[in-house]
């Protein structure tokens, strides 16, 4: 018997809204969370555009002592997971806990704790704090969520750079389909708006000088953001028995690797990934399909992804609606696919497609309908979330209306 996977809840911590409702409003209103600011540790500082999560300090304090001393990457994961579990109305008793997976990824892990430790060791000749390892390990967010909610099914972190969250969603769904769990928390968290990490990103020379302008001819790079996005995935029968609201179906998932280059994306790899994700999905009307693009705003990604979408949808590509919400919330790296999956599901739920903002100069090489600058009201039946990572690791998830 086929075990179908549905979405019954989600939680968001993002630069345009630190909870699902404010995130949804931010998307609909084309809110930009990218601002130029100084990111510092003591006397070391770098100033560049970044998308910070604001006003969550009180919520972090309320998480209690174990999380107060965790890294921000774990704190944001827990805030998103708490909201997702509440949204799903999931009561985790002993039996449910044993059958609930927790797959929460991160591109890096506890970057702020790395920075602090090395600063103290190298600049101040101080010893590392004894909790440093527990703060920096990339599975810390998954572990904190698992411990806090008593989730005792399969649990680990996935690290595939900018595809971490989307891989987590797909792998968690496979775990549920395979029967090792009935429910799963899936997503990722990222907190790399730190001096050390931003110097390293800046060294790659791919950051935008002012803001992120996906698919616009004047685009000149990505803007790093922080946050977390977590879904509650559930076997359909399990969700129905407990009377949960089904928000969307996870009806397709594809993953592959370019096998070519650490930086340059491959049109063939991205297209094959989307085609794999759509294999199990019937599309009758391309105008009811929304693609939340990877859309980084880099010189190479946007035309390559555009061609891959054309390759995948053929003549139907002109009827699709595509957008890059990274123009608003920045690139959350490992966590990007988590909040972007939620943006995709929101479009299914509300019929409001989030825009690509900062799209002020059309590029002949980016020739799809990107919902430029303003949200579009349209019935959406199928929503695709693309994530294409450095290192050529691709993942795409497809959600359908419940």
């Amino acid at each position: 018997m086929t075990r179908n996977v549905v979405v019954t809840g989600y939680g968001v911590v993002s630069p345009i809204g630190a909870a699902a409702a404010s995130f949804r409003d931010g998307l609909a209103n084309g809110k930009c969370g990218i601002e130029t600011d100084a990111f510092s540790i003591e006397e070391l500082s770098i100033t560049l555009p970044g998308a910070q999560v604001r006003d969550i300090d009180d919520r972090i304090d309320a998480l209690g002592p174990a999380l107060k001393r965790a890294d921000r990457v774990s704190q944001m994961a827990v805030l998103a997971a708490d909201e997702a579990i509440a949204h799903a109305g999931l009561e985790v008793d002993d039996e449910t806990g044993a059958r609930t997976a927790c797959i929460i990824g991160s591109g890096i892990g506890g970057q702020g704790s790395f920075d602090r430790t090395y600063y103290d060791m190298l600049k101040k000749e101080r010893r590392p704090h004894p909790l440093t390892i527990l703060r920096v390990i990339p599975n810390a967010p998954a572990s904190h969520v698992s411990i806090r909610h008593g989730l005792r099914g399969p649990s680990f972190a996935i690290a595939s750079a900018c595809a971490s969250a989307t891989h987590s969603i797909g792998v968690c769904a496979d775990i549920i389909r395979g029967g090792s769990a009935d429910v799963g928390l899936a997503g990722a968290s990222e907190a790399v708006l730190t001096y050390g990490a931003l110097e390293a990103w800046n060294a790659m020379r791919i950051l935008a000088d002012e803001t992120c302008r996906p698919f616009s001819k004047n685009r000149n790079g990505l803007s790093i953001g922080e946050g977390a996005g977590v879904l509650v995935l559930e076997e359909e029968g399990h969700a129905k028995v407990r009377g949960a609201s089904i928000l969307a179906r996870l009806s397709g998932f594809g993953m592959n690797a370019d096998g070519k280059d650490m930086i340059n994306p491959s049109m063939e790899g991205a297209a094959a990934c989307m085609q794999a994700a759509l294999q199990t999905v019937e599309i009758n009307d391309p105008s009811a399909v929304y693609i939340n693009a990877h859309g980084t705003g880099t010189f190479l990604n946007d035309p390559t992804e555009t061609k891959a979408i054309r390759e995948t949808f053929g003549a139907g590509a002109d009827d699709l609606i595509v957008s890059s919400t990274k123009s608003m919330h920045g690139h959350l790296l490992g966590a990007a696919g988590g909040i972007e999956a939620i943006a995709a599901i929101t479009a299914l739920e509300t019929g409001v497609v989030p825009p690509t903002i900062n799209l002020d100069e059309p590029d002949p090489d980016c020739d799809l309908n990107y919902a430029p600058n303003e949200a579009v009201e349209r019935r959406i039946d199928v929503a695709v979330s693309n994530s294409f990572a450095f290192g050529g690791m691709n993942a795409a998830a497809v959600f359908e209306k419940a």
Partner: protein
Amino acid sequence: MADDIEKPLLDIIQEHAVGLTAPLTRETQIADLGIDSFSIVEIIYEVEEKLNVEVPFNANENPFGDMSTVGDLVDALQNLINK
């Protein structure tokens, strides 16, 4: 020596005693402090940093044995420091 550091030791323990509602004394039960598996390691780190002493503690050797009160913990820390 022992008397000089008892007060700062108690202060550091107090900072970590997030579950404590009554005043901290030597007679307070460790179980009432609300501390978890890593609090001891954190407390020792802070003792070393703040008091500029060395505490030769290895978490694998369980040098604290069966302690029940804060007084037991303070005495064990003092013994390690005086080693």
